[in-house]
């Protein structure tokens, strides 16, 4: 394999700095919770359903805690109390939390120890549910041959879950290894998860537990048919990132788009909220053995991909540090990056090779996820197809793990059946015709590729040092990533954050945190 020069010393320093950056934030996380996090715990214990106006029970229950100013005690505390005070089930307990006429301030009555004890079996049951799904996935996966890398990842995004299912199967037929159902544009900012099967969504389809099931069924059928394990993925992002992580865990999803900072930067979600939520989400993700996909690729859609190359790498180290703190294994960290350099720049292909290979070497056991060109795509679908071809070539030559396939219609619309078919076909072609290219070539010492790799790593190290000094909060404040500036208390969802009470204790969270 052709390598770029990498100074292991510098890499170690990058990791150390990232660890410190995450430690600073972790102190905040460990003392806070959010409505999203607490709703997730309720779901995990077994609460489900919506009221007649479509509001999820867990929202009604948790909003009430927040309104009462007792969110900092954690939802589990109240659930435990309801169980001790006569609720017949978790569901009943949640309903009481939501609808009981009297206000529970979480004080008096059962002791904290009793509360913990009553929750213990439910916490274990919650874990078992996740573990069962994980085992089922492992078993099914093991019944097929392993998928060679790069794994071909495509999106479906009709807005209608039934059309999505059809297109997911079509994608598998066309050679896809991984199918993602893109989310409706609006969902990130909804502070609840819609319920049931959905057939209307702009720019994508709502992520709901029922929709997850429908696609799981479709991809399982496709696995059986294609004699290849077809992975399913969705988005653990936005104001409900943790709830979705849990849903994905129990619905046996294989991957999740999940990033420690994407929501802050690209959805203007409040930093505090986002950092707390990502931690809860990742605890479930880790337990479920789900692979995360981080979103550093997005930086290059708002910042220039030549100038901003190092921000991707700095952020990957940070995402890695956060993920490690949530118990996610390196083998499950699909750190994101992208092929977004202006294609008309001389030797842009060489810069892309340098970047892709550098990241491959920096994160050798990580299932890194590579995103195709998007920003410089135009409606010239023919040229766009060629642009993607070069992306595919670098993908196979540098052995990226997960490759989201580019679509020639990128600048036009969400991919249609034909677009996806042709993209898969072109990718199969490239992965075949250039199969061993990576093993066949070497990069010149001191050549353009080597120099570019060295430069980018140096800049990443510099940036990490700066972020470590100023803290991530301030670094984001001055636009260190994606040229986007956010403030600590600005953005959406800040009201949903609460400081944890000294008595905060969630037995399920404790079990999850016992991992690693």
């Amino acid at each position, binding site marked *: 394999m052709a390598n770029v020069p990498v100074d292991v010393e510098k890499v170690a320093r990058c990791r150390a700095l990232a660890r410190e950056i995450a430690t600073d934030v972790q102190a905040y996380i460990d003392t806070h919770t959010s409505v999203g996090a607490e709703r997730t715990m309720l779901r995990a214990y077994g609460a489900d359903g919506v009221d007649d106006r479509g509001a999820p029970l867990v929202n009604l229950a948790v909003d009430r805690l927040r309104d009462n100013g007792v969110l900092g005690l954690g939802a589990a505390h109240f659930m435990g109390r309801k169980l001790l005070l006569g609720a017949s089930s978790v569901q009943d307990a949640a309903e009481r939390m939501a609808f009981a006429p009297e206000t529970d301030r979480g004080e008096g009555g059962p002791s904290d120890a009793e509360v913990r004890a009553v929750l213990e079996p439910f916490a274990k049951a919650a874990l078992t549910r996740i573990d069962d799904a994980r085992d089922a996935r492992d078993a099914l996966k093991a019944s097929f041959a392993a998928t060679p890398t790069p794994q071909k990842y495509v999106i479906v995004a009709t807005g209608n879950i039934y059309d999505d299912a059809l297109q997911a199967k079509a994608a598998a037929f066309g050679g896809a290894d991984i199918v993602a159902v893109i989310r409706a544009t609006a969902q990130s900012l909804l502070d609840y998860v819609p319920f049931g099967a959905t057939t209307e969504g*702009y720019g994508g389809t709502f992520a709901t537990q029922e929709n997850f099931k429908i696609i799981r069924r479709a991809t399982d059928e496709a696995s059986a048919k294609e004699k290849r394990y077809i992975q399913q993925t969705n988005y653990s992002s936005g104001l409900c990132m943790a709830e979705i992580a849990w849903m994905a865990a129990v619905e046996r999803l294989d991957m999740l788009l999940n990033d420690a900072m994407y929501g802050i930067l690209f959805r203007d979600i409040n930093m505090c909220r986002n950092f707390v939520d990502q931690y809860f989400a990742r605890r479930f993700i880790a337990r479920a053995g789900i692979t995360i996909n981080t979103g550093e690729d997005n930086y290059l859609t708002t910042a220039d991909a030549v100038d901003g190359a190092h921000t991707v790498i700095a952020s990957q180290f940070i995402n890695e540090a956060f993920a490690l703190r949530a118990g996610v294994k390196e083998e499950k960290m699909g750190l994101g990056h992208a092929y977004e350099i202006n294609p008309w720049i001389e030797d842009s292909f060489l810069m892309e090779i340098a970047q892709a290979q550098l990241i491959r070497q920096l994160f050798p056991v990580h299932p890194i996820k590579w995103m195709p060109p998007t920003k410089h795509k135009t409606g010239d679908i023919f040229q766009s197809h060629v642009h993607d071809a070069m992306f595919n070539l670098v993908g196979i030559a540098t052995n990226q793990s997960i490759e989201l396939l580019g679509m020639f219609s990128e600048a036009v619309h*969400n991919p249609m*059946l034909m677009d996806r078919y042709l993209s898969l076909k072109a990718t199969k072609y490239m992965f075949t015709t250039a199969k061993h290219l990576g093993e066949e070539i070497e990069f010149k010492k001191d050549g353009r590729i080597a120099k570019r790799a060295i430069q980018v790593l140096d800049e990443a190290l510099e940036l990490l040092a700066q972020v470590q000094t100023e803290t991530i909060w301030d670094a984001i404040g001055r636009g260190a990533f994606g040229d986007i500036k956010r403030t600590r208390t600005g953005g959406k969802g800040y009201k949903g954050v609460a400081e944890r009470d000294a008595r905060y204790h969630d037995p399920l969270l404790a079990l999850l945190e016992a991992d690693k």
Partner: protein
Amino acid sequence: MKVDTTEHVLRAYGDRHGDGMVQMSFVLEIPPGARAREAAKRFAEAHGLSEPLVATQELCAEGFTYFVVYGHSKHTVDVSKIEVPEISTEPLSREEIETRIKKRGKKIVVVGACTGSDAHTVGIDAILNYKGFAGDKGLESYKGFDAHNLGAQVENDELVTRAVALSAEAILVSQVITQRNCHKENAIALVDLLTKKGLRDRFVLLFGGPRIDHKLALELGFDAGFGPGTKPSDVAAFLVEKFAPPSVEVA
């Protein structure tokens, strides 16, 4: 309206003048084969293509076939009949823009946002922020403009409230997501809201995005539309013509 050629009635051109050659691709729910080929031919003929050539037919999903078809289109388009509203503003130099606004005596206050659930800020940022687009600096960079960029996912309500609060003279709306025409709905809703509040005439309303053109913007009740490739200086020139026409000589 300018007429570009003496020939007004255009056919498509491929190989030889007037051959009408066009290329189509599509998917039909039929497995490949002789019947599928015939179906594709008839489908192409229904579009007005003669001698359709089915260049390829491939199974692209169970029961679905992808086709590439070429044919001679019988259709023509009479371009002499096309009247497209075009923004007639001539490009102005930065100096000219600054001088004119200076003459007018006060800054032009503009508020921009990417509205609804749309989070694509790159376009509106390109127009408003200092950095600009393709080397052309944004409105923020002009002394004569007071540019407020509210960013993404701004609801119409909030946009109007902020515009009023800032005494803005122009509102700049960006819409990138167009799936099932949500951009049009969002735009119409804004115009309705302003009309209902009696504020429509208070603002010059600009609409922009990769799928927007001047014609569409006018149809939706905006004052101007800007499509892909718009430069900040185009927008500046347009606004200066509106708010600081060359004749204006006020304090």
